[in-house]
């Protein structure tokens, strides 16, 4: 068990090292000078040189890479070039929006897709199944930011039940903050639910066709019992895999919805940092995303051993 965790940890560190190397090199190759962007078109060469020196941009590539890694090992992510604040603080503030938003979106997505997928699979080609099929197709075809715009126009501006955008902060109260996250979460959840519905339906149909399910029915188990004790535990594996991938995508990829609803999340931070060539923020954020994906995969793997007893047996 310890060996297993140690192996995963080693894998995490090696992957992060490789990612850090790649992102550092890529950002050096991309055209654009952070100092020029900060100081603008009127700045004189001596002013630019002074700022570059201040930001540490006049050091050699190797020196800068090592400085960055050393800082990371000590828990110091560095200071943003454009905001002059610690990157850790910036990421922390953005996570306060992105994590709850992702959580809410995943919750809604599972809430919609699991019942829908299972019911659709229970009676293939029935009414629910046709509806689920239609829902999946449309949900996958329509972009999430467009759904967001429709929600703003249709619900926010017409009925005023939810704000049309912006995030008041958790200090404004739990309900107030959640209110601002509901519509964006729905916009994110619908395409995810569409995919998850298809996966759920396919998984359940496939498992239902297996021999052991037929045996269980033959032995007199009720359809309900068969569904929850035999089918679902097996079907959960592809569903959980998909869910793990979706969570990783949501944490990094909600940028369009964040833009439409004007939420200060991680996606927006990454996008703004890239436009402003805030190299240190980009490097740290990419590393952070890589770490998140790896950690989520780790948990999904661990979940497999819980869901599938066969995997618990040591080789």
């Amino acid at each position: 068990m310890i060996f297993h965790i140690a192996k995963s940890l080693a894998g995490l560190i090696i992957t992060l090292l490789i990612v850090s190397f790649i992102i550092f090199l890529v950002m050096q190759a991309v055209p654009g000078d952070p100092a020029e962007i900060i100081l603008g078109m009127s700045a004189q060469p001596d002013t630019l040189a002074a700022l570059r020196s201040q930001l540490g941009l006049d050091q050699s590539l190797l020196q800068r890479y090592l400085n960055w890694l050393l800082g990371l090992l000590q828990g110091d992510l560095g200071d943003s070039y454009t905001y002059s604040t610690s990157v850790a603080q910036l990421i922390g503030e953005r996570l306060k929006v992105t994590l709850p938003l992702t959580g809410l979106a995943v919750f809604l997505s599972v809430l919609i897709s699991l019942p829908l997928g299972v019911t659709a699979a229970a009676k293939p080609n029935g009414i629910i199944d046709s509806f689920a099929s239609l829902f999946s197709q449309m949900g996958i075809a329509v972009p999430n930011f467009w759904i967001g715009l429709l929600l703003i126009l249709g619900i926010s501006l017409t009925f005023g039940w939810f704000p049309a955008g912006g995030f008041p902060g958790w200090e404004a109260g739990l309900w107030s903050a959640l209110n601002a996250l509901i519509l964006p979460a729905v916009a994110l959840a619908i395409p995810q639910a569409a995919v998850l519905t298809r996966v759920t339906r396919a998984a359940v149909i496939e498992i239902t066709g297996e021999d052991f399910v037929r045996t269980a029915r033959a032995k007199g188990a009720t359809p309900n019992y068969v569904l929850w004790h035999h089918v679902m535990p097996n079907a959960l594996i592809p569903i959980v895999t998909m869910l793990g991938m979706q969570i990783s995508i949501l944490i990094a990829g909600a940028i369009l919805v964040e833009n439409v609803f004007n939420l200060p999340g991680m996606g927006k931070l990454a996008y703004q940092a890239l436009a402003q060539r805030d190299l240190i923020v980009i490097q740290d954020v990419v590393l952070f995303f890589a770490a998140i994906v790896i950690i989520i995969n780790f948990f999904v793997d661990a979940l497999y051993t819980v869901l599938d007893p066969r995997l618990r047996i040591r080789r």
Partner: protein
Amino acid sequence: MIRLFRYILTTTVAIGLLTINGVNAQPRNDLVLGMSVEPTGLDPTAAAPVAIGQVVWQNLFEGLVAINKAGEIEPQLAESWTISEDGLTYNFTLRSGVTFQNNQKFTAETAKYTIDRILENDSINPQKSLYKSISSVKAVNPKTLILTLSSPSADLLYWLGFPAAVMIEPTSEATNATNPIGTGPFKLLNWKKGNQLTLVKNEHYWGKATKLDKVTFRFISDPQAQAAALNSGDIDAMPELSAPELVSQFKHNQAFDTVIGTTSMEVVAGMNNAKKPFNDARVRQALMMATDRQAIIDATSEGLGTPIGSHFSPSDTGYEDLTNIWPYDPVKAKKLLAEAGYPNGFTFTMKMPTRTYAERAAEIMQAYYAMIGVTMILESSEFPAKWVQDVFKDSNYDMTIVGHAEPLDISIYARHPYYFNYHNPKFDKTIAEISNTTTEVERIAGYKKSQEILAQDVPALFLYAFPKIGVWKKGLQGMWKNQPVPSNDITDAFWSE
């Protein structure tokens, strides 16, 4: 039937009670303002982005002088000043009893510190070049500041009113980017980066108290989101709505005031004057005649915006309308092009920065030039990073299009090196002479002459002055219509109901 009647009665009474409450309410003393770009820091003396001044200039920080909504210079922390005959000595009498928001006094020593800091060798002030004529600063006594110049600079007073020259306090200087300390009527309450920023009234302000107690700036980059926020009441005002095509919904809406003004930003299509065929003035003039400015304005900003004939905005004092020097005339354009040796036109590449107005304008121009046989190939250039490197620094371009937002920046055509690669000794001389003028009349005359030279020579295609599209809730007064300096001066704003 009785039940229905009772229901209607209760509902009416309820609505009545609610609205009565509204009528008796005091006028609000807080304001929520929307801005499309968030400033990266709050120290306008250490970074260039215009958004910084748009939050803090005049609201939080003040300078020796201020620029008012008409673009004129007004005394601020300097009560009065005298300028010597030769224009080399400026003697400022400073206001007394002024304190910074951290209770430190403002004296001539503070002013000296501020200006010395702009000029020192490792200064990171983005506008340092504007003040380079200052050779020494002396604080004779707490109320008197003397600037000695190495050469006359008639615009120096104007530059001293800029966000880049606001007075800062030495002990708070290092943290001004995140915790700005100025002398202005508002001070910073908090800044939730990526989201919003709140200013509150400075109780110890030296001047006229503001009517507002609290101002919140919300940063909304998406134009649709801006419109949605206005409609839902999330923000009260959007001084610069990013999408002109959304204006019409507000124009017809009684709940809002829509005020269209001008900004100091000139949208010009710069040409690489060092490269063929743009080194020939006739080619540039022909292209100017082949460009229908109004069509570009109609396509990029719903007809809002002013055509310009030179590098000067209608909101700057001294503006001359020179659009009739090379008016739209495709027949004459083709003839002039043939005279220059291109009877069958030519092909070139337009590097457009990734900004909506630039991309749209470029597409319109492509169509107009095709009509006179000139082929324009469009290439996107990521803005700001790649564009600044490619076009601005390396001059690796034929033609580009960008908005120049700095007020009174016609002198960029006399700057060497600069991305236009334009060398006109006569123009350089005219610009240099403006610095030496001693009266306002002479200064304005100098600017007019420089405008005329550029209008004739067309080093860049002068397209239009960007409009300021202001939308705010009815009842909000004191907002600026024009933007002679990039700013959101809300010191005079108040609710009238």
